[in-house]
């Protein structure tokens, strides 16, 4: 394995990137959480780690935030090794974990002041910074109420505020908007975008394709502990077989297989059928001329359409073409398992 000393490590990559990982591997018993993972995030940018539950996202974040040691490989934050220079790394990072880590028995202000004191800010400075963050995160009105009575969105904002107390140059957000209503999610997105504009490097994990698309300049798709593809949202969409999808919805849902055979030779990528809704999607390059041909063929075969449309591919389509399964299909089953786990209030020691 790469047991390089800092001098022989590929310095360019390590020192140029704000966050970098090389050959990172981690196993829990027989379960492989990370498998030889390489990643680099440029300073001042935002990278989304996209993948379903169990893909290894949280394990990656826990290693980069010094909470967990890798079995093999190395990782750096601003050039500091997360294992050897763990104490230094902790002064450079902010972490907002998968569940908001706020003390329910303390008020919002007390939570932030506590974190400030633990960063060794002087008392007055900790108070000033707490007020500043409460203001900026729309929590000033609830500052003196205990976090116990906060809504999910308020807890998330308080948690994010806590991770920003020391103005860290590098921020790790593990599924920052999981379980939030659309309005709270939008609010959090705006905060994150503002942070990046101010120069913070952000690595966020998400299962939400929309979130990665909206926030991240660069997306890495994670599956089974490895990065299977990465690039801009545009690049990822194009690499799945076309820049546009022709989507038809059938009047008779049982005909999806038949339609996929009829259209099989037309597209530029793999046809996707959803029998439950009677939908068939065909990736194509430069769609309109093919659209006419699709209609002609289906009409000749006597297939009745309920709807036909051209649409932009989503990252869900990307994930499907890369992994053979959708994000939702694996995310839903593990989301159920997660709910069951939360209801039992088990500690979060998952992958």
């Amino acid at each position, binding site marked *: 394995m790469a047991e390089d000393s800092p001098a022989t490590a590929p310095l360019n990559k390590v020192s140029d990137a704000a966050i970098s990982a090389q050959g990172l591997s981690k196993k829990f018993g027989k379960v492989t959480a990370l498998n030889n993972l390489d990643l680099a995030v440029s300073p001042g940018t935002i990278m989304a780690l996209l993948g379903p539950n169990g893909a290894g996202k949280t394990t990656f974040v826990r290693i980069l935030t010094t*909470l967990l040691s890798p079995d093999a490989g190395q990782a750096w934050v601003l050039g500091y090794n997360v294992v050897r220079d763990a104490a230094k790394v902790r002064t450079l990072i902010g972490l907002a974990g998968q*569940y908001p880590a706020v*003390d329910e028995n303390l008020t919002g202000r007390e939570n932030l002041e*506590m974190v400030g004191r*633990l*960063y*060794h800010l002087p008392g007055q400075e900790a108070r000033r910074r707490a007020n500043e963050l409460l203001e900026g995160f729309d929590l000033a009105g609830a500052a003196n109420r205990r976090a116990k009575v906060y809504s999910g969105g308020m807890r998330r904002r308080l948690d994010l505020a806590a991770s920003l107390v020391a103005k860290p140059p590098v921020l790790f957000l593990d599924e920052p908007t999981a379980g939030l209503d659309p309005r709270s999610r939008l609010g959090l997105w705006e905060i994150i975008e503002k942070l990046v504009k101010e120069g913070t490097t952000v690595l966020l994990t998400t299962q939400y394709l929309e979130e990665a698309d909206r926030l991240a300049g660069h997306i890495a798709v994670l599956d089974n502990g490895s990065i299977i593809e990465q690039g801009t949202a545009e690049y990822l969409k194009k690499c799945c077989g076309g820049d546009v999808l022709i989507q038809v919805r059938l009047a008779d849902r049982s005909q999806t297989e038949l339609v996929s055979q009829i259209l099989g030779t037309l597209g530029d990528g793999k046809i996707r059928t959803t029998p439950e809704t009677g939908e068939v999607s065909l990736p194509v390059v430069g769609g309109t001329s093919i659209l006419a041909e699709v209609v002609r063929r289906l009409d000749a075969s006597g297939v009745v359409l309920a709807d036909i449309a051209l649409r932009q591919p989503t990252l869900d389509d990307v994930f499907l073409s890369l992994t053979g399964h959708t994000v939702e299909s694996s995310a839903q089953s593990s989301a159920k398992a997660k709910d069951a786990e939360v209801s039992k209030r088990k*500690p979060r020691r998952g992958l």
Partner: protein
Amino acid sequence: MMDAKASLPAYRFVWNFSDTIVIAWRNVLRFIRLPQLLVFSTIQPVMLLLLFNYVFGGAIGTGGLKYIQYLLPGFLVQIVVFGSSQTSVGLAEDLSRGMIDRFRSLPMARAAVLAGRTLADTLRYTFLVLLMIGVGYAIGFRFHNGVAPAIAAAALAVLFGFAFTWLSAFIGMSVKDVETAQVAGFVWIFPIVFASSMFVPIATMPGWLQAFAKINPVTVTTDTVRALALGGGIIDPLWKSLAWIGGLLLVFLPLAVRRYRRIP
């Protein structure tokens, strides 16, 4: 700004201390603001003391001594042992809610999370011990051996609790959830509290149980507190009691700290 100074031992010492105080403050607040925790950790033992004294007291022979005189010193010891089970519950809760992750990702002193909690718990024991002495006085208990030994008796009970807190902290970080932490306490607390000289003289127990009761840390500490409060032979129970306290700390303090550093 902070990092250059971080490596200086003097700064590190000050930070260890100030981080510990911050965490202790947070845990004391939690204790004060959770009404049910306050109720159960105060009303329940008061009720138990009254029940034991008035229900069983008359039936238990203590060699001419008024039962409350016999009971209260041991009660101070059992209350801190029961109280220490809260340490594991609190830590298990912090673990499950991600608080421990947050603390571990901060550039704070590594030992402060545990030190702060055990400090807060020790303050709690002090409060409980003083409360029990007050209730005891209201129902007829009196110190008979002077002020300094009375203070020493209370201090020994609190110190005993401090030792058990580290055992409890280790359990709290080893179990998987809050519920397990709650029931795990009873597995070890009930035998050592009841099979001791706390409620009844151990001479009344069957021989095999006496063997356990004699070496039980609760027995030797109860005997010491009793001797400090009422007078009597103190050397033998005192050194045994201090040996237990030292032993518990020597084993469970490093185990708990090690566990904290290597949380999976």
